[in-house]
């Protein structure tokens, strides 16, 4: 009887490496005085190590731990994405937390733990792994959302996230149970083979429907999106940044793997449900985003809308759509991290300085910062040459390919709404006079991160092949 083999260890090395470093960090937190800084560096090293492992395993194409985990290709790609996002979010978080006087080592440990969950999600070949991945990630997120213990909005954000998150877990689990009941397995690789047999069983399809709901909640699809604005607004900004990028990407990565099963069978029933969710997400996200006054909340609605765009790719049930989602996740992660990074830099104690008005005249006071923010806004709008455009192009192309042209048209029309509120940021920054003349001090670390994000969206926008070439082996 063999428990595991060395190849299992190599295959799961990113997770293992990160786990090991998170334990080290935890120990350091307990043992070292003024530990937060130390823990930060340990986390950075751990993440870098995990990135190394993920890159090392990229060319593999296998499964590990009795088909529980995918190894290489898709999993490694997403692992790198999650780790990079985690790294950036740490860089954004450190100066922020120091300024807010909330700098504890636990923060970094929790980020690492949630990243472990993400890595599992991106590598899940089994619904159990996906389920546990979601839980590891979410439990850490629940805590992170409530990280500002003394602040009511943070508490509330955590409670809402937690209650609804647990609620949705119930549905996800129910879905997994029904799939299991109708196929006798939770392993996606085997469900595929069972799928034709179970196709006609209403219990089976309901199972997929419930899984859809569970993931729909995590990716913030309408009508399971209600938590998003409140949680994003209440959580500390670096946490929001991480949740909206890493969390969404992780949920989507597992979503795509899981749904590649029914979608590979072109199950039109699910395609249509996903399409409807996509359409309503795009509509509501962009529509309600229009009247937001708080930038974090606006980005929350934008996050809902972007989930809608990505669901378009899912609904199309083509590899084009999957590539689109993947690329979109990358571009969205960079864009949103950048935007939140800037928000985090400009935010003041007690959530002040988050309204549009506070950004008035930024272009004169801090031209570089304003230019970066404008780039992120244009990328979110989907204007070339930024990465956001290429992603949208792929997603809508996939929709057209799958006879979902109506969805693509709907998508572009609603994105017109979004133009308005993304542009509003630019309008305030560039076209209005400053009302506030205080000097703005920018933490170097965050600023550098934001610049890297900007370079990223520009680079991926102009040379999308950088990403797409990697995907050749994935889909």
């Amino acid at each position, binding site marked *: 009887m063999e428990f595991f083999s060395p190849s299992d260890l190599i295959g799961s090395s990113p997770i293992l490496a990160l786990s090991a470093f998170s334990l080290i960090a935890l120990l350091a937190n307990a043992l070292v005085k003024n530990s937060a800084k130390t823990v930060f560096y340990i986390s950075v090293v751990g993440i870098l190590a995990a990135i190394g492992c993920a890159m090392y395993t990229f060319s593999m194409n296998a499964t590990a731990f009795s088909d529980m985990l995918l190894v290489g290709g898709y999993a490694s790609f997403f692992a790198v994405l999650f780790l990079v996002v985690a790294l950036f979010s740490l860089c954004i978080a450190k100066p922020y937390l120091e300024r807010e006087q909330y700098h504890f080592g636990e923060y970094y440990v929790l980020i690492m733990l949630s990243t472990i969950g993400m890595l599992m999600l991106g590598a899940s070949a089994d619904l159990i792994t996906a389920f546990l991945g979601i839980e590891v990630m979410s439990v850490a997120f629940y805590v992170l959302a409530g990280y500002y213990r003394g602040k009511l909005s943070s508490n509330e954000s955590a409670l809402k996230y937690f209650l*609804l998150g647990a609620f*949705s877990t119930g549905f996800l689990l129910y879905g997994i149970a029904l799939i299991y009941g109708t196929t006798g397995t939770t392993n996606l690789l085997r469900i595929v083979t069972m799928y034709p047999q179970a196709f006609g069983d209403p219990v089976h399809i309901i199972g997929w*429907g419930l899984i859809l709901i569970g993931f729909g909640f995590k990716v913030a699809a309408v009508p*399971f999106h209600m*938590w998003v604005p*409140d949680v994003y607004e209440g959580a500390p900004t670096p946490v929001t940044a991480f949740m909206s990028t890493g969390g969404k990407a992780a949920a989507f990565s597992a979503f795509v793997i899981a749904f590649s099963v029914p979608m590979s069978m072109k199950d039109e029933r699910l395609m249509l449900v996903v399409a409807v969710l996509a359409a309503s997400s795009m509509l509501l996200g962009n*529509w309600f985003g229009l*009247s937001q006054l708080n930038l974090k909340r606006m980005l929350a609605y934008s996050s809902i809308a972007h989930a809608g765009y990505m669901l378009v790719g899912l609904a199309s049930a083509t590899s084009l759509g999957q590539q689109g989602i993947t690329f979109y996740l990358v571009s969205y992660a960079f864009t949103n991290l950048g935007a939140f990074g800037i928000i985090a830099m400009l935010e003041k104690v007690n959530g002040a300085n988050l309204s549009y008005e506070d950004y008035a005249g930024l272009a004169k006071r801090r031209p570089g910062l304003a230019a970066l923010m404008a780039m992120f806004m244009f990328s979110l709008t989907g204007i070339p040459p930024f990465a956001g455009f290429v992603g949208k192009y792929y997603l809508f192309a996939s929709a057209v390919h799958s006879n979902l042209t109506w969805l693509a048209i709907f998508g572009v029309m609603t994105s017109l709404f979004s133009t*308005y509120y993304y542009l509003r940021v630019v309008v305030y920054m560039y076209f209005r006079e400053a009302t506030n003349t205080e000097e703005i001090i920018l933490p170097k670390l965050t600023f550098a991160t934001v610049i890297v994000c900007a370079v990223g969206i520009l680079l991926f926008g102009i040379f999308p092949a950088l990403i797409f070439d990697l995907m050749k082996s994935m889909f």
Partner: protein
Amino acid sequence: MYSLAPFIVLSPLLGFLINGFFGRKIKNETIVGSIGTLAVASSFIIALLIFIEMLGSPAEERKHIVTAFEWIAAGTFSANVAFQVDQLSILMTLIVTGVGSLIHLYSIGYMHGDAGFWRFFTYLNLFIFAMLNLVLADNYLLMFLGWEGVGLCSYLLIGFWYDRNFEKGTTGDAAKKAFIVNRIGDFGFLLAMFLIFNTFGSLTYETVFAQAAGFSVGDNVMFWITLLMFIGATGKSAQIPLYVWLPDAMAGPTPVSALIHAATMVTAGIYMVARSSILYALAPSTMEIVAIIGLLTAFFAGTIGLVQNDIKKVLAYSTVSQLGYMFLGVGVGAFSAGLFHVMTHAFFKALLFLGSGAVIHAMHDEQDIQKMGGLQKFMPWTFRTFAIGSFAIAGFPLLSGFFSKDEILWKAYTDGAPWMWLIAALAAGITAFYMFRLVSLTFLGKERFDLHHVHPHEAPQTMLIPLLVLAFFSIVGGYVGIPHVLGGHNYFEEFLEPVFAGANAKLMMPMHDSAALELGLMGTSVAIGLLGIYAGWKIFTQKMEIAENVAKRFSGLHKILWNKYFVDEAYDAVVVNPIKTTSEKFLWKIFDVKIIDNTLNFSAKFVEATSNIFRRIQTGVVQSYAIVFVAGILFVIGYLMVW
């Protein structure tokens, strides 16, 4: 010699460029004036040389086309900058450059001391250039270049004194009116060109006319082509309904009125009809329209002229009226008669205008004839030449106007209808009457101005010489076309005959050999004319009260005439103001701003407002979120269940 034809055109252009670019720097008026005058004079000389050569060659070798370069070519369309020198165009060229040179010379004196001296000559040269293009072009497109070009120059020159007032508005108003009314005509011309190209596949005269010979009389397309062209002509040659600009054009300096609004540009319409004679010959309906319009214009403009008090206005209405005669002529198929009148009219009308210019000059820009009188004493030469001109226009026997006018009247009777002759003859009488009203009120009788403040004086040499030359031609100019019935040979008609041969072949005029009738009609019209002269002289030198009584008795009619039949007002009320009001009040302020923009802005606002309302379903209570969540589940499961 023919190959020199482009230089006829080029020379004034050169003058234009030199004066245009350097005129302001050259402070010396003499140099500027000389450049301008010489530029036109040299054209005249070249034209004269060509004319002489032409006279020496047989009739069939008199047409030459000189191509300079391809102008516009696209697809099957192609038009050259090419000049067609033939009898008709050389005749027109001679008139344009000849009269033009004289007026340039006159202007040196007239414009002396004006701040825009160089500008004036620049514009004049540009005008001559455009006019020469018009008459020398070998295709309609190049003619159109000249056509619009003269319109532009007319605009520039009418508005020359751009900061002066004119009547109720400014000179600018008059200039703009001229250009726009001309443009309305040009619109017709443009459409005519499109139709010509559509029908013949070319705009070149040779091709078009050669093909036209194959068409039958009464062809529908020809009707439209010619009608549209005639709309163009009514604009340029100031015919009903587009004549309204010409009286206002008197806002410009007097030499301009002489050159453009009497001698040259306004005859462009006649020239065009004559040039396209074959097309007109194919469209008898248009011919009829042309004749009637011409006749009506001749009559109504004459009646307006009866009551005008502005010296130039009277001349202006007389010009409109005379142009009507010309159209009557070409309208009844007497193309050469029409052109004959163009030529003689050029002489005496230029003379009259220049003479009036001398008067105005002498009276320090006073133009109201009611405030003149007795100028005969102060400026005898002006008076003499002016009188010659007046006699000529009144059709006094053996002066130039007599021959040309009678030719038209006769053709109107034979080829048109007797009633046409009657009205035309009546109009001739009216002309004679108001011309001598003008002469009497201006030069004869008592001075009605303040002698202490105004010191009229004879015009300077540069102004007098042109007057004398023109007076000479006003007298003898008609002798090239003495009709057969008076024992003449009508060289003029013979010379132009080849140009109109095609048209005449189509027209197939009935022959009239009744010399007695011709002489009888001639006698009648002369009598009417003489009566008019006598009445005009008698009433306005000795029996002023008659005029006043008549004016009082027919005060309604007088008022109508005084206000020029209220045509301007009617146009304003029917066309101009409605368009303006609709554009501003409806198209812009309502359609553009309210309907289109507000619809869009409203949709944007609507989306934002509804967003603001409906985002409140996000109540902040976590259970309401859960309810939405469950609703979503119900949908998903329900949908998948009933599939």
